């Protein structure tokens, strides 16, 4: 009984931690992996999603509906940003980095001006239950399930739809994709909008567990970037999943044994080691393995 509940608790911690890494990174990784744009406004887009969900909840909308609402609001905002500003910086990675940083400043300060320094937070939906000595939050279990569903949905979107095929082709060779009839401008607008919307969705999902404030997005930026870099760009979804799982597998046991601070130290150290061993990230390693198998006819 006691070992069983300890194992369950460890798995639960691992799952919540991996879900957090994945949710924090998913919007960023779509935009970086599919457009090669380092979106420094990612944290603020998450903040915008959190604000949308919080304001709507306070206005009486059921929380479950505020999450898709946050996706739509931030996706629409992302589409406008792409059309007006971001598309002028394609192919200039440093320019895009600076301009998205500028957008993040405007969004953070604008929120401070408009809504003030704090907003009453919303309470975590659902209760908790205990098993053995440990207690489990129903909401975090839902977040784990949503993360898994999102992974499946994104895999389907990028591997089984026309948009996904065109987006991956445009990422690899935009000029060639355009010369084969792809409306690359439209693909980029959709991709940026999707990445922004996913950041908004994640922000809404994390909102009940966080303090709602104009600069709340900053806390997600570091874990998001670590997840993205460790995952690599060869296959962004596989990379994000592998990296979120691996980082959680390092952080969770250390955190449980020595406290959250040492968990974070172990996480950063692990990221350092992984990047040193696999400079192109986990997904590039996976891809080489897959190529060897497909060439030798095993797949």
């Amino acid at each position, binding site marked *: 009984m006691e070992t069983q509940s300890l194992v369950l608790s460890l798995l639960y911690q691992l799952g919540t931690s991996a879900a957090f890494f994945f949710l924090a990174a998913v919007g960023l990784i779509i935009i970086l992996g599919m457009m090669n744009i380092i979106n420094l406004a990612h944290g603020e887009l998450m903040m915008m999603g959190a604000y949308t969900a919080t304001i709507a909840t306070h206005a009486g909308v059921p929380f479950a509906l505020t999450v898709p609402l946050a996706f739509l609001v931030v996706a629409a905002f992302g589409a406008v940003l792409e059309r007006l500003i971001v598309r002028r910086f394609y192919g200039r990675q440093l320019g895009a980095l600076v301009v998205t940083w500028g957008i993040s400043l405007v969004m953070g300060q604008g929120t401070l001006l408009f809504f003030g320094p704090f907003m009453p937070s919303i309470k975590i939906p659902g209760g908790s239950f205990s098993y053995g000595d440990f207690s489990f939050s129903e909401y975090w279990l839902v977040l784990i399930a949503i993360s898994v569903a999102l992974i499946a949905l994104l895999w389907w979107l990028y591997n089984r739809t026309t948009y996904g095929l065109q987006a*991956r*082709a445009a990422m690899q060779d935009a*000029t*060639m994709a355009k*010369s*084969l*009839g*792809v409306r690359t401008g439209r693909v980029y607008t959709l991709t940026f909008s999707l990445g922004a919307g996913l950041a908004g969705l994640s922000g809404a999902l994390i909102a009940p567990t966080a303090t709602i404030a104009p600069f709340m997005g900053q806390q997600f930026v570091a874990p998001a970037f670590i997840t993205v870099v460790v995952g690599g760009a060869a296959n962004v979804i596989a990379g994000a999943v592998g990296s979120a799982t691996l980082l959680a597998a390092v952080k969770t046991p250390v955190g449980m044994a020595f406290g959250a601070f040492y968990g974070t130290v172990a996480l950063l150290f692990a990221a350092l080691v992984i990047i040193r061993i696999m400079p192109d990230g986990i997904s590039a390693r996976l891809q080489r393995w897959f190529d060897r198998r497909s060439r030798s006819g095993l797949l």
Partner: protein
Amino acid sequence: MTSVLSIQGAVAGYATGNVLHGVGVEVAEGEAVAVVGRNGVGKTTLMRTAIGQLPLRAGSIAFKGTDITAEPADRRARRGIGYVPQGRGIFPHLTVRENLLMGGFINEARRNPDFELVFGYFPFLRERLGQRGATLSGGQQAMLAIGRALINEPALLLLDEPSDGVQPSIIEEIGEILSDLNRTRGISVLLVEQNIGFMQRVAGRAYTLDKGRVTSELGPEEIADERLLAEHIAV
């Protein structure tokens, strides 16, 4: 004969200056035309201008009688122009199947990627559908690029040195396939080529290009004249 592609007085180039100084090239329906010339005379620039990767600074381009001078590359491709670029332009991380599917947006009016048509010419592709583009050899990539441009039966194929970096036996095979596509399927071809034997097998007519200008037009008899051709292509 109606014109499929008509390039008139084309002036185009890069930030460093113009490469084409008023080039005129005509391809009639069902015709296979070659453009020959030494390295650096503007052959690839001409092809990139034809598909729309480079804007025209003067002159005009018409496809099947419609002026497409101001249209971007994607619009031209959807009208029915299949492009096989120098270096082949295979998407390295897409599978063979996905690379072929990418040809499905060419020739919008048809919208029915015909895999069997491609496998008929390049049967090896059927066994490699799940393999990534980057893992194919140079010759296989050249055939994949042609298959991709072909899959929706375009009205015109633009081919930029498809024989480059391909072993001789495969070059011969590709030449026969292109010739067959042109004769039995009526697909018009504009081919840029340095390999004389390959060009002779495919084209019925040729332009020679030098320093960004058309210097002569060669008919079927002149194409067969190796010495004359060598004069135009020799470095």
